[in-house]
């Protein structure tokens, strides 16, 4: 009961908000408009997906939200922090404590075990080792990798490596998980399992998820899909509405 009221309260406030955001890379002849006049707001607990052709600005949006780069114009607010105004220390703290990041390649350190990899963000943040042990074990359990804690990445399959990477993103108990093509390098069945896992974590923990994907099945697990073209918002799709529309009986039936 308490959890429910908490959830609905959090739903009211956007945890990620972009207002009239543009991002330009380079200058003069080589200027690239990666994002143009983009505005959207993801409520806390939301699961949103970004789609669009290569070069449409999807990954740039994630970089902006992670505070890896400031907007050229407009405002990016992430969990109360104005990315354009923030200091390097503040954006570093954001990545350390608020935002978990998952990429297409798991980027695990090859010489460390799964549990040491998962614990790395906490180790770098100076967390006590007893706390690290506890949180790492819990995170590995969530992704179903508790039994593989001592294995190194080369002893794990692609899907298992991606699960460990997801645990590393979750270990900081983030408010937001950003995922850039998390199923992009996996076969369809393994990718679907990762997709199920992301959806379940969103439902169980209420963590806000923003995922970049080419995979329409993964996108269809989200609450809302933003389709970008040339850095602009082409289309915003409410998946609940879309699936209700899809069960309308055909005239021919």
């Amino acid at each position, binding site marked *: 009961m308490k959890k429910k009221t908490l959830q609905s309260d959090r739903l009211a406030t956007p945890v990620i908000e972009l207002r009239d955001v543009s991002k330009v890379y380079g200058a003069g002849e080589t200027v690239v408009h990666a994002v143009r006049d983009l505005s959207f707001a993801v409520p806390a607990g939301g699961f949103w997906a970004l789609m669009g*052709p290569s070069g449409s600005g999807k990954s740039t949006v994630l970089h902006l939200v992670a505070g890896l780069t400031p907007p050229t114009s407009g405002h990016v607010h992430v969990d109360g922090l104005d990315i354009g105004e923030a200091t390097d220390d503040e954006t570093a703290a954001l990545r350390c404590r608020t935002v978990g990041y998952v990429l297409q390649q798991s980027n695990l350190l090859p010489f460390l075990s799964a549990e040491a990899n998962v614990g790395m963000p906490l180790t770098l943040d100076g967390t006590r080792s007893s706390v690290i042990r506890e949180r790492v074990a819990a995170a590995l359990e969530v992704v179903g990798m508790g039994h593989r804690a001592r294995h190194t990445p080369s002893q794990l399959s692609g899907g298992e490596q991606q699960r460990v990477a997801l645990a590393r993103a979750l270990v900081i108990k983030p408010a937001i998980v950003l995922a850039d093509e998390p199923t992009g390098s996996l076969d369809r069945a393994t990718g679907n399992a990762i997709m199920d896992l992301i959806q379940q974590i969103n439902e169980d923990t209420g963590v806000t998820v923003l995922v970049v994907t080419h995979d*329409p099945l993964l996108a*269809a*697990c989200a609450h809302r899909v933003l*389709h970008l*073209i040339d850095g602009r918002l082409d*289309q915003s799709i409410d998946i609940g509405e879309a699936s209700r529309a899809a069960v309308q009986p055909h005239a021919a039936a």
Partner: protein
Amino acid sequence: MGKENLRYAVLGLVGARRSGVHGYQLKGELEALCNDFWQVNFGRLYRQLDMLDQSGDVEAEPVLQEGRPNRKVYRITEKGKQTLDDWLQQPVSDRPRPLRDELVLKLLFLGRSNIEALSDQIQQQRSIYLGKLALITQWRRRLRKSAMDSELTDLIMDGLERRLRAEFAWLDDVQRRIVLRHAGSKEKSITNEEKDPSI
């Protein structure tokens, strides 16, 4: 689902229950199994059952119910088993029929002349495909819990998923090659002249 296929789907589902099945049960099973994105119309299902009854492929036995109208329990006959068997052995008759696809016709006739309308069609269609894919994930979970052979129903859902993925990819292609190319050429012509800040 075509008329013919519906007929055999009904016959197959009746045949799967040796003890017989009544209409309402059948509707539920048909929806769970072949819910090809439409809800099965009760009248249509009963017409099929009547036709199968008349052709002697199924037999209908009225069951007395107190205080309510009798209901019929349907069972497959020997003739029906033969009919089903013959059909199962026949090669699948599906052929690609691109011109029967509504979107393809609209693409053809909207062509390059009305890019905005084509763009709207693409957006609507993308939304529908995503909605259907969301349903597939739901159905897959529901079917896994049902009494049906989950390996087979999983394969059926895989087939639907793959087809939708292919259609989705094709839609992106149409947008890239027709709509975006058009927008690109328009943008160039603007930069060559004077830039309009409203665009």
